[in-house]
């Protein structure tokens, strides 16, 4: 390892540590629990944005259907919580006590087979990961083996988002339909609606997000990360070098799906319900916007992008309920026009050179040796 690389490595760590300090210390100290819970909700979207950095920024694969995986993760969690909330005592006024209320309204008289595994928390948690991963794997193999990429792939992911949202809304006896799965109360008897639970869930989300970003940084450092970049820029060269491009793409697609699903599960826990409104095309595109605003090459930037857009949304819609959509549009247009590389781009083009200049000035007495090629660690 050369010094330059070491420094890049260190700056990555610094960025992550700064983010963690902001999320785990500064925000909890300065916000009340209602606002902190909102930030926790935004952070659950940040999982998707981080996944998109890997998939889109590194892998060069634009998915406009990440809401699907966010939704699947969220629904798997919600199904467990709903079954726990639907014990025979609290549902005694129903025709069939002991099943979720929306099933009763839809004339179902027993729990569908599909729902049975979700009575158990370990199975539900496994499903949070496995169901989206499996779907992403099947889609990935089907499309990447046929060398579907670029715009065609993006359209396919949109189609999947549309299909899933129609399916969820149409099969309301099994999914809660357009209402979603609402009124979730406890996790193994622990009331997830209390303030203390919101604090614990918030810190869990922050910790998990930190781990996820760290893992993604590790992937970026590894040979795999280099290969992903190479495939993005010169796909044919990688293929001719003997690598199976489709497998790597499937891997990164599954990775992004799993991250989105983790976000979905944390969303359900913090917000207390899951709605099909996340699964459709529009929210999926919104998730891409979060990544674009943050900078699609920066894992940490994606988190800041998500926070900025969502804080903007909440602030504008609370302060200017009649104008907020225009203000949001102005924000997007402004970011894209002025900073095409997102927030991370601002950092790279303005903030870092300034920091470096200051550091060089300080280190003038002890210059850093410049050896080796920084591009190939």
């Amino acid at each position: 390892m050369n010094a330059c690389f070491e420094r890049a490595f260190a700056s990555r760590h610094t960025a992550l540590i700064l983010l963690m300090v902001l999320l785990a210390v500064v925000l909890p100290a300065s916000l009340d629990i209602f606002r902190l819970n909102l930030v926790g909700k935004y952070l659950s979207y940040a999982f998707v944005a981080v996944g998109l950095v890997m998939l889109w920024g590194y892998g060069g694969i634009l998915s406009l259907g990440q809401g699907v995986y966010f939704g699947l993760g969220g629904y798997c969690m919600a199904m467990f919580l709903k079954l726990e909330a639907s014990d025979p005592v609290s549902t005694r006024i129903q025709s069939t006590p002991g099943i979720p209320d929306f099933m009763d309204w839809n004339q179902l008289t027993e729990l569908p087979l599909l729902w049975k595994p979700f009575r158990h928390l370990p199975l539900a948690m496994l499903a949070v990961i496995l169901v989206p991963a499996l779907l992403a794997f099947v889609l990935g193999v089907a499309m990447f083996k046929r060398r579907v990429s670029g715009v065609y792939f993006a359209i396919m992911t949109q189609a999947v988002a549309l299909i899933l949202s129609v399916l969820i809304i149409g099969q309301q006896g099994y999914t809660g339909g357009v209402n979603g799965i609402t009124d979730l109360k406890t996790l193994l008897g622990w009331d997830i609606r209390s303030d203390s639970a919101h604090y614990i869930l918030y810190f869990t989300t922050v910790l998990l997000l930190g781990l996820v970003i760290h893992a993604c940084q590790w992937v970026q450092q590894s040979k795999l990360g280099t290969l992903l970049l190479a495939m993005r820029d010169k796909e044919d060269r990688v293929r001719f070098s003997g690598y199976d491009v489709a497998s790597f793409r499937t891997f990164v697609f599954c990775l992004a799906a799993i991250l989105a699903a983790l976000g979905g599960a944390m969303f359900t826990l913090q917000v207390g319900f899951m709605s099909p409104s996340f699964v459709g095309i529009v929210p999926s595109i919104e998730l891409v916007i979060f990544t674009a605003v943050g900078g699609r090459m920066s894992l940490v930037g994606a988190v800041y992008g998500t926070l900025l857009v969502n804080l903007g949304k909440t602030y504008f819609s609370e302060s200017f309920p009649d104008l907020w959509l225009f203000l949001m549009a102005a924000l997007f247009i402004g970011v894209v026009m002025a900073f095409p590389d997102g927030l991370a781009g601002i950092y790279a083009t303005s903030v870092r050179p300034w920091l470096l200049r200051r550091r060089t000035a300080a280190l003038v007495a002890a210059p850093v040796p410049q050896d080796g090629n920084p591009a190939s660690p």
Partner: protein
Amino acid sequence: MTSMFAGPPRMSPRRHLLCSFLSALLLASAPALHAETPATAKVNTTGLAVADTEVTVGQLHSATGTMAISETGSIQAEQLAIDQINAAGGVLGRKIKVIKEDGASDWPTFAEKAKKLLVNDHVAAVFGCWTSASRKAVLPIFEKENGMLYYPTFYEGLEQSKNVVYTGQEATQQILWSLDWAKKEKKAKSFFLVGSDYIWPRTSMKIARKHIENFQKGKVVGEEYYPLGNTNFNSLINKIKIAKPDVIFAAVVGGSNVAFYKQLKAAGITADKQMLLTLSVTEDEALGIGGENLAGFFSSMKYFESLDNDNNKKFVTAFKAKYGPKSVIGDVTQAAYLGPWIWKAAVEKAGSFDVDKVAAATPGIEVKIAPEGYVKVHQNHHLWSRARIGMAQADGQFKVVAESPELIEPNPFPKGYQ
């Protein structure tokens, strides 16, 4: 926040003297106002946003997104009621201040904004929601944070909460009497049920089917559901032509409505050959569908703009004066107008803004100035109201052709219809 509203600050004797002098002045200048204004500490023991001259409430509807077209009428009617209440001196001597939030036709956003209104703004009441999905999203929050929601839309029932007052009809109020009317007056024996595919039409049609089959001994010759937003009804129209029902009983909503009635007309199914009774077309929808595509069909509602009584004439005049002569008033708009009035009456009956006391005082509240005529709040927080059948006119208005003689009891959990 709590301490701000918990009670009057302790005063030094001199300041106390000054205060009594000032209040004496006030008493002299506005004796009536002072007499009606009880101390804030007394009427607000739970830290709501109630000050000496002002009480804050929330308004939570979709001002943007696909539901905006439906919810705008409710926003306007609630604002009108609040303006009128303020002009008449407010509630317990306090003017109503409104914090408006946009649910943006997105259910998680409704949940976020509901929580903001209750936890952050401590509003004394919230007027809002429209779709069942938005209500289901906010209900746990209102129950957990102990807020008060006034919900205006006719809906599927199967719900009852201390924290919600339902100012629209639950399903049985809208359905049973109108089916009986169709049987008695129109000799209808066979029905074709059609609806959009979500909880309200599903539940409504379940109740309709049980009533037709078990109580009327009639026949249901078809039951079809279409996804929200569906615009192709040709296969349905063929099925209707084959089944030849006496009545098409419809609960199609939103944009689908426009396609549904236009395609019916194009297929030659018009009022002179086929009776149609709908649960989902008010003056607002008629505006989009076009009166010429609806003329002669029947709609079951509790309110029509054309209702001929003094309350309604005043209401329509005031509404059009504020929002323009071309604005129309549908069933839900009128129900939304009742919300602030019911809240005011309950607060004054309870002598307090505290949610528990308001909720307890709500049953038995009467609204004598209701445009739909006299209504009363039931023990279950729904309204006793009449059912009415309106016949659509080419100008998009409805002519009231029948009206239930009695107020119909709300029954959100009907026995024998589950």
